[in-house]
Protein backbone atom coordinates (compact mmCIF):
# COMPACT_ATOMS: atom_id res chain seq x y z
CA UNK A 1 0.00 0.00 0.00
CA UNK A 2 1.43 3.35 -0.98
CA UNK A 3 0.94 6.55 0.98
CA UNK A 4 0.05 9.81 -0.69
CA UNK A 5 1.30 12.99 0.96
CA UNK A 6 -1.00 16.00 0.95
CA UNK A 7 0.82 18.61 -1.15
CA UNK A 8 1.78 22.04 0.14
CA UNK A 9 0.73 21.53 3.76
CA UNK A 10 4.03 23.06 4.92
CA UNK A 11 5.81 24.69 2.01
CA UNK A 12 4.03 27.51 0.11
CA UNK A 13 1.97 26.71 -2.98
CA UNK A 14 3.62 28.25 -6.09
CA UNK A 15 0.42 30.03 -7.15
CA UNK A 16 -1.06 31.28 -3.87
CA UNK A 17 2.29 31.83 -2.14
CA UNK A 18 1.08 30.20 1.08
CA UNK A 19 0.47 26.68 2.35
CA UNK A 20 -2.90 25.21 1.40
CA UNK A 21 -4.29 25.09 4.95
CA UNK A 22 -3.85 28.81 5.43
CA UNK A 23 -5.38 29.67 2.05
CA UNK A 24 -8.34 27.42 2.79
CA UNK A 25 -8.78 28.98 6.21
CA UNK A 26 -8.90 32.50 4.72
CA UNK A 27 -11.58 31.37 2.23
CA UNK A 28 -13.54 29.89 5.15
CA UNK A 29 -13.23 33.16 7.08
CA UNK A 30 -14.53 35.05 4.01
CA UNK A 31 -17.66 32.87 4.11
CA UNK A 32 -17.94 33.54 7.85
CA UNK A 33 -17.85 37.31 7.21
CA UNK A 34 -20.85 36.85 4.91
CA UNK A 35 -22.70 34.75 7.51
CA UNK A 36 -22.27 37.29 10.31
CA UNK A 37 -22.67 40.15 7.79
CA UNK A 38 -26.12 38.89 6.84
CA UNK A 39 -27.11 38.70 10.50
CA UNK A 40 -25.75 42.18 11.26
CA UNK A 41 -27.66 43.51 8.24
CA UNK A 42 -30.83 41.87 9.60
CA UNK A 43 -30.17 43.45 13.00
CA UNK A 44 -29.83 46.95 11.48
CA UNK A 45 -33.05 46.57 9.46
CA UNK A 46 -34.99 45.31 12.48
CA UNK A 47 -33.63 48.03 14.74
CA UNK A 48 -34.15 50.94 12.35
CA UNK A 49 -37.63 49.71 11.46
CA UNK A 50 -38.70 48.96 15.04
CA UNK A 51 -41.87 50.81 16.07
CA UNK A 52 -41.33 53.43 18.78
CA UNK A 53 -41.05 51.98 22.27
CA UNK A 54 -40.38 48.42 21.18
CA UNK A 55 -36.55 48.60 21.25
CA UNK A 56 -34.62 49.44 24.44
CA UNK A 57 -33.01 52.93 24.43
CA UNK A 58 -29.83 51.35 25.78
CA UNK A 59 -28.77 47.70 25.84
CA UNK A 60 -27.68 48.26 29.44
CA UNK A 61 -31.40 48.52 30.42
CA UNK A 62 -31.63 44.77 29.83
CA UNK A 63 -28.10 43.34 29.59
CA UNK A 64 -25.30 43.14 32.16
CA UNK A 65 -22.60 45.57 30.92
CA UNK A 66 -19.93 44.68 33.56
CA UNK A 67 -20.16 40.99 32.61
CA UNK A 68 -20.02 41.89 28.91
CA UNK A 69 -16.95 44.05 29.53
CA UNK A 70 -15.19 41.29 31.47
CA UNK A 71 -16.01 38.83 28.68
CA UNK A 72 -14.54 41.22 26.10
CA UNK A 73 -11.30 41.42 28.09
CA UNK A 74 -11.27 37.61 28.55
CA UNK A 75 -11.61 37.07 24.80
CA UNK A 76 -8.90 39.64 24.00
CA UNK A 77 -6.59 37.90 26.51
CA UNK A 78 -7.34 34.55 24.84
CA UNK A 79 -6.38 36.03 21.46
CA UNK A 80 -3.04 37.13 22.93
CA UNK A 81 -2.37 33.69 24.45
CA UNK A 82 -3.26 32.09 21.10
CA UNK A 83 -0.77 34.22 19.16
CA UNK A 84 1.84 33.59 21.89
CA UNK A 85 1.30 29.82 21.48
CA UNK A 86 2.10 30.14 17.78
CA UNK A 87 5.11 32.41 18.47
CA UNK A 88 6.48 29.90 21.03
CA UNK A 89 6.27 27.06 18.50
CA UNK A 90 7.98 29.26 15.93
CA UNK A 91 10.80 29.68 18.48
CA UNK A 92 10.99 25.90 18.86
CA UNK A 93 9.59 25.97 22.40
CA UNK A 94 6.87 23.31 22.39
CA UNK A 95 6.34 23.21 26.17
CA UNK A 96 5.63 26.95 26.33
CA UNK A 97 3.43 26.78 23.23
CA UNK A 98 1.35 24.03 24.82
CA UNK A 99 0.91 26.06 28.02
CA UNK A 100 -0.35 29.05 26.01
CA UNK A 101 -2.75 26.77 24.12
CA UNK A 102 -4.06 25.50 27.46
CA UNK A 103 -4.46 29.10 28.71
CA UNK A 104 -6.47 29.91 25.55
CA UNK A 105 -8.68 26.88 26.13
CA UNK A 106 -9.30 27.86 29.76
CA UNK A 107 -10.06 31.49 28.89
CA UNK A 108 -12.56 30.27 26.28
CA UNK A 109 -14.17 28.21 29.05
CA UNK A 110 -14.34 31.29 31.31
CA UNK A 111 -16.04 33.22 28.48
CA UNK A 112 -18.68 30.51 28.09
CA UNK A 113 -19.32 30.25 31.85
CA UNK A 114 -19.87 34.02 32.12
CA UNK A 115 -22.12 33.92 29.05
CA UNK A 116 -24.08 31.02 30.59
CA UNK A 117 -24.71 33.05 33.78
CA UNK A 118 -25.96 35.92 31.60
CA UNK A 119 -28.32 33.60 29.71
CA UNK A 120 -29.54 32.06 32.98
CA UNK A 121 -30.31 35.52 34.38
CA UNK A 122 -32.42 36.29 31.30
CA UNK A 123 -34.37 33.03 31.40
CA UNK A 124 -35.24 33.51 35.10
CA UNK A 125 -36.19 37.20 34.77
CA UNK A 126 -39.85 37.85 33.91
CA UNK A 127 -42.06 40.57 32.55
CA UNK A 128 -45.80 40.74 33.21
CA UNK A 129 -48.19 43.05 31.35
CA UNK A 130 -51.53 43.58 33.10
CA UNK A 131 -54.95 44.95 32.04
CA UNK A 132 -55.84 46.76 35.27
CA UNK A 133 -52.93 48.89 36.55
CA UNK A 134 -51.30 47.82 39.82
CA UNK A 135 -49.50 49.97 42.40
CA UNK A 136 -45.68 49.69 42.21
CA UNK A 137 -43.06 52.13 43.56
CA UNK A 138 -45.94 54.52 44.39
CA UNK A 139 -47.22 54.57 40.80
CA UNK A 140 -49.96 52.78 38.90
CA UNK A 141 -48.28 50.62 36.24
CA UNK A 142 -49.32 48.04 33.64
CA UNK A 143 -45.86 46.41 33.32
CA UNK A 144 -43.92 44.65 36.09
CA UNK A 145 -40.50 43.03 35.77
CA UNK A 146 -38.93 40.76 38.37
CA UNK A 147 -38.47 37.19 39.54
CA UNK A 148 -41.35 34.72 39.77
CA UNK A 149 -41.84 32.70 42.95
CA UNK A 150 -45.09 30.93 42.35
CA UNK A 151 -47.34 30.12 39.41
CA UNK A 152 -50.78 28.60 39.78
CA UNK A 153 -53.85 28.52 37.53
CA UNK A 154 -55.29 31.43 39.51
CA UNK A 155 -52.32 33.72 40.15
CA UNK A 156 -48.57 34.35 39.96
CA UNK A 157 -46.31 35.75 42.68
CA UNK A 158 -43.48 38.05 41.58
CA UNK A 159 -40.78 40.03 43.39
CA UNK A 160 -40.51 43.23 41.32
CA UNK A 161 -37.09 44.63 40.44
CA UNK A 162 -35.81 47.30 42.81
CA UNK A 163 -35.49 50.88 41.59
CA UNK A 164 -31.97 52.31 42.05
CA UNK A 165 -31.58 53.90 45.48
CA UNK A 166 -34.87 52.46 46.77
CA UNK A 167 -35.65 49.46 48.95
CA UNK A 168 -36.57 46.16 47.29
CA UNK A 169 -40.38 46.05 46.85
CA UNK A 170 -42.40 43.33 48.56
CA UNK A 171 -43.73 40.30 46.67
CA UNK A 172 -46.87 40.91 44.58
CA UNK A 173 -49.67 38.51 43.81
CA UNK A 174 -51.24 39.06 40.40
CA UNK A 175 -54.44 37.36 39.30
CA UNK A 176 -54.23 35.37 36.06
CA UNK A 177 -57.37 37.12 34.75
CA UNK A 178 -55.52 40.43 34.91
CA UNK A 179 -52.47 39.19 32.96
CA UNK A 180 -52.23 40.13 29.28
CA UNK A 181 -48.75 38.69 28.74
CA UNK A 182 -46.31 36.77 30.91
CA UNK A 183 -42.84 36.07 29.49
CA UNK A 184 -39.25 35.69 30.56
CA UNK A 185 -36.45 37.61 28.82
CA UNK A 186 -35.75 34.70 26.44
CA UNK A 187 -35.77 35.03 22.62
CA UNK A 188 -39.60 35.19 22.57
CA UNK A 189 -39.60 38.35 24.72
CA UNK A 190 -38.95 40.81 21.89
CA UNK A 191 -37.20 41.30 18.56
CA UNK A 192 -34.24 42.75 20.47
CA UNK A 193 -33.87 39.64 22.64
CA UNK A 194 -34.37 37.36 19.62
CA UNK A 195 -31.53 39.04 17.70
CA UNK A 196 -29.37 39.08 20.87
CA UNK A 197 -29.76 35.33 21.41
CA UNK A 198 -29.33 34.52 17.70
CA UNK A 199 -26.09 36.45 17.28
CA UNK A 200 -24.49 35.72 20.67
CA UNK A 201 -25.66 32.09 20.44
CA UNK A 202 -24.04 31.64 17.03
CA UNK A 203 -20.90 33.33 18.34
CA UNK A 204 -20.94 31.01 21.38
CA UNK A 205 -21.13 27.99 19.06
CA UNK A 206 -18.03 29.31 17.28
CA UNK A 207 -16.27 29.47 20.66
CA UNK A 208 -17.23 25.84 21.33
CA UNK A 209 -15.94 24.85 17.87
CA UNK A 210 -12.64 26.60 18.55
CA UNK A 211 -12.33 24.87 21.93
CA UNK A 212 -12.77 21.45 20.28
CA UNK A 213 -9.93 22.20 17.83
CA UNK A 214 -7.66 23.58 20.60
CA UNK A 215 -8.36 20.48 22.72
CA UNK A 216 -7.46 18.29 19.72
CA UNK A 217 -4.17 20.18 19.33
CA UNK A 218 -3.44 19.86 23.06
CA UNK A 219 -3.99 16.10 22.96
CA UNK A 220 -2.31 15.25 19.67
CA UNK A 221 0.34 18.00 19.84
CA UNK A 222 3.15 16.00 21.51
CA UNK A 223 3.14 13.20 18.93
CA UNK A 224 2.76 15.60 15.99
CA UNK A 225 5.58 17.80 17.32
CA UNK A 226 7.95 14.83 17.52
CA UNK A 227 7.15 13.77 13.93
CA UNK A 228 6.59 17.07 12.15
CA UNK A 229 6.96 20.31 14.16
CA UNK A 230 6.38 22.60 11.15
CA UNK A 231 3.02 20.96 10.50
CA UNK A 232 1.88 21.48 14.09
CA UNK A 233 3.02 25.12 13.98
CA UNK A 234 0.97 25.68 10.82
CA UNK A 235 -2.08 24.04 12.39
CA UNK A 236 -1.78 26.30 15.43
CA UNK A 237 -1.46 29.31 13.11
CA UNK A 238 -4.67 28.34 11.25
CA UNK A 239 -6.51 27.75 14.54
CA UNK A 240 -5.24 31.15 15.66
CA UNK A 241 -6.61 32.86 12.53
CA UNK A 242 -10.03 31.36 13.26
CA UNK A 243 -9.81 32.29 16.94
CA UNK A 244 -8.90 35.92 16.23
CA UNK A 245 -11.85 36.13 13.84
CA UNK A 246 -14.17 34.93 16.63
CA UNK A 247 -12.65 37.64 18.87
CA UNK A 248 -13.17 40.21 16.09
CA UNK A 249 -16.87 39.33 15.80
CA UNK A 250 -17.32 39.83 19.56
CA UNK A 251 -15.58 43.22 19.36
CA UNK A 252 -18.54 44.37 17.21
CA UNK A 253 -21.26 42.39 19.01
CA UNK A 254 -20.41 43.89 22.40
CA UNK A 255 -21.08 47.59 21.67
CA UNK A 256 -23.98 46.82 19.34
CA UNK A 257 -25.98 44.89 21.93
CA UNK A 258 -24.69 46.11 25.30
CA UNK A 259 -23.87 49.78 24.77
CA UNK A 260 -26.11 51.18 22.00
Amino acid at each position, binding site marked *: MSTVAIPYDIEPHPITG*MYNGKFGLWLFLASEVMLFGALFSTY*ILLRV*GAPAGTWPHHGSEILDVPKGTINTLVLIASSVSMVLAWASLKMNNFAKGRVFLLVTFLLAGVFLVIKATEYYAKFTHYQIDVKTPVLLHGEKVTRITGHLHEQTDEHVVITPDAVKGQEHPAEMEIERDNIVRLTNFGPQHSTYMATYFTLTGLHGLHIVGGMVVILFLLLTGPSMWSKNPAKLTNRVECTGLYWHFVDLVWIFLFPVFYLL
Partner: protein
Amino acid sequence: MASSSHEMDKHLKVYYIVFGCLAVLTVLTVSVAYLHLPIVAAVAVALLIACVKGSLVASFFMHLISERRLIFVILGLCLFLFLMLLLVPSLTFFEPHYSTFVNGVSGR
Protein backbone atom coordinates in the same frame (compact mmCIF):
# COMPACT_ATOMS: atom_id res chain seq x y z
CA MET B 1 12.12 26.17 11.32
CA ALA B 2 12.78 28.42 14.29
CA SER B 3 12.61 32.11 13.41
CA SER B 4 15.38 34.38 14.54
CA SER B 5 15.11 35.15 18.23
CA HIS B 6 15.53 38.90 17.73
CA GLU B 7 12.76 39.01 15.13
CA MET B 8 10.37 37.04 17.35
CA ASP B 9 11.15 39.24 20.36
CA LYS B 10 10.04 42.22 18.30
CA HIS B 11 6.80 40.40 17.43
CA LEU B 12 6.17 39.55 21.09
CA LYS B 13 6.59 43.18 22.10
CA VAL B 14 4.04 44.21 19.46
CA TYR B 15 1.53 41.59 20.72
CA TYR B 16 1.74 42.94 24.28
CA ILE B 17 1.35 46.55 23.08
CA VAL B 18 -1.70 45.60 20.98
CA PHE B 19 -3.17 43.77 24.00
CA GLY B 20 -2.76 46.94 26.10
CA CYS B 21 -4.37 49.09 23.39
CA LEU B 22 -7.33 46.69 23.06
CA ALA B 23 -7.90 46.69 26.83
CA VAL B 24 -7.75 50.51 27.00
CA LEU B 25 -10.12 50.86 24.02
CA THR B 26 -12.58 48.41 25.66
CA VAL B 27 -12.67 50.54 28.82
CA LEU B 28 -12.99 53.68 26.66
CA THR B 29 -15.97 52.35 24.68
CA VAL B 30 -17.80 51.43 27.91
CA SER B 31 -16.98 54.83 29.48
CA VAL B 32 -18.27 56.72 26.42
CA ALA B 33 -21.51 54.70 26.54
CA TYR B 34 -22.20 56.07 30.05
CA LEU B 35 -21.96 59.66 28.74
CA HIS B 36 -25.35 59.04 27.08
CA LEU B 37 -24.48 60.92 23.89
CA PRO B 38 -27.17 61.53 21.23
CA ILE B 39 -27.83 58.27 19.35
CA VAL B 40 -26.04 59.23 16.11
CA ALA B 41 -22.91 60.34 17.98
CA ALA B 42 -23.04 57.26 20.26
CA VAL B 43 -23.28 54.89 17.26
CA ALA B 44 -20.47 56.73 15.42
CA VAL B 45 -18.09 56.67 18.43
CA ALA B 46 -18.86 53.03 19.37
CA LEU B 47 -18.40 51.80 15.81
CA LEU B 48 -15.26 53.88 15.31
CA ILE B 49 -13.67 52.35 18.43
CA ALA B 50 -14.84 48.86 17.37
CA CYS B 51 -13.29 49.40 13.91
CA VAL B 52 -9.96 50.47 15.44
CA LYS B 53 -9.98 47.42 17.73
CA GLY B 54 -10.93 45.13 14.84
CA SER B 55 -8.14 46.57 12.69
CA LEU B 56 -5.60 45.98 15.45
CA VAL B 57 -6.66 42.33 15.82
CA ALA B 58 -6.68 41.73 12.04
CA SER B 59 -3.42 43.60 11.36
CA PHE B 60 -1.23 42.22 14.15
CA PHE B 61 -2.75 39.04 15.60
CA MET B 62 -3.88 37.77 12.18
CA HIS B 63 -0.74 39.25 10.55
CA LEU B 64 -2.74 40.94 7.78
CA ILE B 65 -0.20 43.75 7.83
CA SER B 66 2.37 41.44 6.22
CA GLU B 67 0.00 39.13 4.35
CA ARG B 68 0.11 38.36 0.63
CA ARG B 69 -1.87 40.33 -1.96
CA LEU B 70 -4.17 37.39 -2.74
CA ILE B 71 -5.67 37.54 0.77
CA PHE B 72 -6.48 41.23 0.29
CA VAL B 73 -8.22 40.44 -3.01
CA ILE B 74 -10.39 37.84 -1.26
CA LEU B 75 -11.12 40.14 1.67
CA GLY B 76 -11.74 43.12 -0.63
CA LEU B 77 -14.39 41.16 -2.54
CA CYS B 78 -15.78 40.01 0.78
CA LEU B 79 -15.95 43.59 2.08
CA PHE B 80 -17.74 44.75 -1.07
CA LEU B 81 -20.38 42.01 -0.74
CA PHE B 82 -20.68 42.72 2.99
CA LEU B 83 -21.36 46.41 2.30
CA MET B 84 -23.96 45.40 -0.30
CA LEU B 85 -25.59 43.21 2.33
CA LEU B 86 -25.75 46.19 4.67
CA LEU B 87 -26.67 48.91 2.19
CA VAL B 88 -29.13 47.35 -0.26
CA PRO B 89 -31.76 46.40 2.34
CA SER B 90 -31.27 49.79 4.02
CA LEU B 91 -32.37 51.49 0.77
CA THR B 92 -35.94 50.45 1.62
CA PHE B 93 -35.93 53.19 4.26
CA PHE B 94 -35.64 55.81 1.52
CA GLU B 95 -38.89 54.61 -0.03
CA PRO B 96 -41.09 57.77 0.23
CA HIS B 97 -44.16 56.06 1.70
CA TYR B 98 -42.23 53.89 4.16
CA SER B 99 -43.43 54.16 7.73
CA THR B 100 -44.09 51.88 10.68
CA PHE B 101 -47.16 52.36 12.84
CA VAL B 102 -48.25 50.52 15.94
CA ASN B 103 -51.39 51.76 17.67
CA GLY B 104 -51.08 55.04 15.77
CA VAL B 105 -47.50 55.70 16.96
CA SER B 106 -44.93 56.23 14.22
CA GLY B 107 -41.62 54.41 14.44
CA ARG B 108 -39.78 57.17 12.60
